[in-house]
């Protein structure tokens, strides 16, 4: 056996580093703003509040992201322990528990930022903006922060209807109106809190900037369909933070960063360079949130020739031009730009034919097994890793069902890996590797099955 030093298995994108640096800047910006006496809000990752807050001159920081930062730097555990000491059950969301522990520590320090906090820390909030979008933890969690800060909490209520219910006559318009009113109530609240008026023009700017960034991200993802996959999910995760948790960062800078990333990925595609420095034996998708504490695990998988060419979380929306000319109300424009009719987005994503099949299934069964599988097909994925999180119900509850659907519809196998976003003790890398080895045979098997069925990959 040769023992020459092999190059690292992952082939990182250079353009990612600049974007990652922007994230640190964003936190530093938050602390600076706070020191200058500007209002700082803690917010969730959801589509609505961030741009509104920024348009109102409020700096935003993202505890969810901050928790993953703590986990990635290996300093989350003391915060988790503190949350437990405060009496919060250990199965609660790892992001929430890290944040609760952080808040508790801040109280102990009379509101100062803990010296051990990475990236300069999160300054004390004047406002907490919770959200019912994505999961319930996200409003229960901010509610429970009342224990540490007397900052007011606003919960953005957004519709989360069942699929069939979304198709009912009138439901879409009702949801749109609901959102418009809800967000206007939020603006009114902010105006009261800050004693100043909303800058609607600024909203057009902050709210519109997202589209430009997302367009680049979309284009990058389109490139990732190439064989071999030019960009590993590890780089995606490192960079995505800059796009999602922009806070007060300058949208132009971020846009430039992704533009550069596009160029780099494009170059790789042209030259046939992969996101891993090994032959691409398997193309995979990662479903669920990443194990922020153990991203190095991907290196070991890459060494086996596993290339995670795509992932389920945080995929950018398809860029489309929506005719907003008939809407003059800035909030209505803001909402309609993003909240789409289910029929429309299905048609755009799946093409008219498949969309009709899906819609029929939804009308009949209330669900369609095909949804959420498009990327598996598009990226010609051999296998899927399902990351079942000990502490996140919302992203884990449906994963086993997805496992069935992947097999039923696409004949693509999946492997469950149990772990957590934050809590490193929930993850057993040795066992995961052992199972990964066996999973290769399973992927081989289904390659044959798909071939027999005449499927394209």
């Amino acid at each position, binding site marked *: 056996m040769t023992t020459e030093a092999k190059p690292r298995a992952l082939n990182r994108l250079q353009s990612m580093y600049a974007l990652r640096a922007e994230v640190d800047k964003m936190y530093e910006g938050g602390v600076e703003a706070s020191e200058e006496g500007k209002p700082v809000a803690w917010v969730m990752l959801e589509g609505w509040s961030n741009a509104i807050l920024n348009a109102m001159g409020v700096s935003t920081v993202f505890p969810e992201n901050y928790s993953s930062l703590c986990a990635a730097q290996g300093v989350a555990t003391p915060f988790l322990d503190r949350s437990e000491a405060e009496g919060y059950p250990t199965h609660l969301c790892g992001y929430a528990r890290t944040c609760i522990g952080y808040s508790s520590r801040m109280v102990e320090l009379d509101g100062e930022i803990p010296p051990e906090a990475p990236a300069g820390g999160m300054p004390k909030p004047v406002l907490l903006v919770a959200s019912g979008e994505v999961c319930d933890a996200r409003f229960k969690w901010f509610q429970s922060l009342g224990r540490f800060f007397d900052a007011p909490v606003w919960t953005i209520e957004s519709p989360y209807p069942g699929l069939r219910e979304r198709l009912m006559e009138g439901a879409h318009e009702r949801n749109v109106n609901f959102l418009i009113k809800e967000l206007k109530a939020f603006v009114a609240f902010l105006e009261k809190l800050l004693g100043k008026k909303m800058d609607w023009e600024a909203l057009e700017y902050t709210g519109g900037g997202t589209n430009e960034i997302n367009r680049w991200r979309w284009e990058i993802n389109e490139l990732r369909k190439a064989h071999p996959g030019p960009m590993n999910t590890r780089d995606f995760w490192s960079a995505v933070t800059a796009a999602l948790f922009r806070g007060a960062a300058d949208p132009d800078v971020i846009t430039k960063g992704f533009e550069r990333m596009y160029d780099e990925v494009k170059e790789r595609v042209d030259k046939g360079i992969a996101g891993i420095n090994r032959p691409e034996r398997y193309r995979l998708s990662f479903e669920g949130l990443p194990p922020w504490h153990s991203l190095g695990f991907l290196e070991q998988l890459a060494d086996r020739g596993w290339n995670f060419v795509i992932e389920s979380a945080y995929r950018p929306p398809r860029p489309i031009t929506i005719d907003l000319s008939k809407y003059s109300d800035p909030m209505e424009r803001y909402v309609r730009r993003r909240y789409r009719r289910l029929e429309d987005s299905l048609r755009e994503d799946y093409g008219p034919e498949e969309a009709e099949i899906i819609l029929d299934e939804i009308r009949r069964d209330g669900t369609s097994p095909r949804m959420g599988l498009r990327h598996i097909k598009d990226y010609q994925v051999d296998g899927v890793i399902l990351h079942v999180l000990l502490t996140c119900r919302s992203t884990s509850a449906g994963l086993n069902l997805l496992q069935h659907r992947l097999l039923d519809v696409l004949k693509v196998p999946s492997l469950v890996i149990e772990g957590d976003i934050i809590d490193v003790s929930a993850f057993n890398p040795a066992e995961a590797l052992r*199972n990964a080895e*066996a999973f290769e045979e*399973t992927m081989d*098997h289904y390659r044959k099955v798909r071939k027999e069925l005449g499927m394209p990959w």
Partner: protein
Amino acid sequence: MSYYLGIDIGSSTSKGVITGDGDVIAQHLLLSGVNYRLAAQKLVDELLAKAGVTREDIACTVATGQGSANVELADQQIADIRCCARGIYSIYPSVRTVIDVQGQSTQVLRLNGEGQIANFVVSEKCASGSGRFLDIIANVLQIKLEEVGPLSLKSKNPVTFTTGCAVFGESEAVSRVAEGVAREDIVAGVHQALAEKISSLVGKVGMEERCAITGGGALNIGLISWVERKLGVELLVPPEPQFVTALGAAIMAEDTCKDG
């Protein structure tokens, strides 16, 4: 003639198989004890002696099992799930589902027609669903391992264990004895709980006949019968179920060697 060696260092027992020309030349088993390295060395030595060959005669060695890293001789380490699949396929090519009950964990495999793993699942992080639970109970009730299975089949009224913990199962069993509960009802209770866990695992990968059971658990006719009842199918039991994984490893060794 070339010989191939498969070594399976399990949590409770270490197993080795030597093949040559596609036949099993020798097999050997000993307790893993508290030093896998020593166990592996001893196993290899005794196995070679049994087969009447020397280390130099072995063309390739594959190690598998929990302690596979401790087999110094190994050319390659391969996950036990894969070895198990290969082993059973060589014995029963028609098998599509395998239940592998080991000392510490249980895994269920689905195979395609070529002995490849089409799906698999491994039991969770708590040992409450493993053969170990049975060992503990047998030990505390002072019943030989070979006898727990047959004894459990006599039960009309299996007890339900309130603790899920394999370790605390011991004190619970003792308390049941003190209450006058028959020993067969206690062991039947453990078997029933195990069979339930196994059937839930089988549910996850989907059942396809024929179905075989391997590992040390397959030596337990009681367990087999409880699982058969739960699943409603008949289980194939290979003649030497504990050696299936080691045999698979030896076959893998042969393949590896031939592939170069």
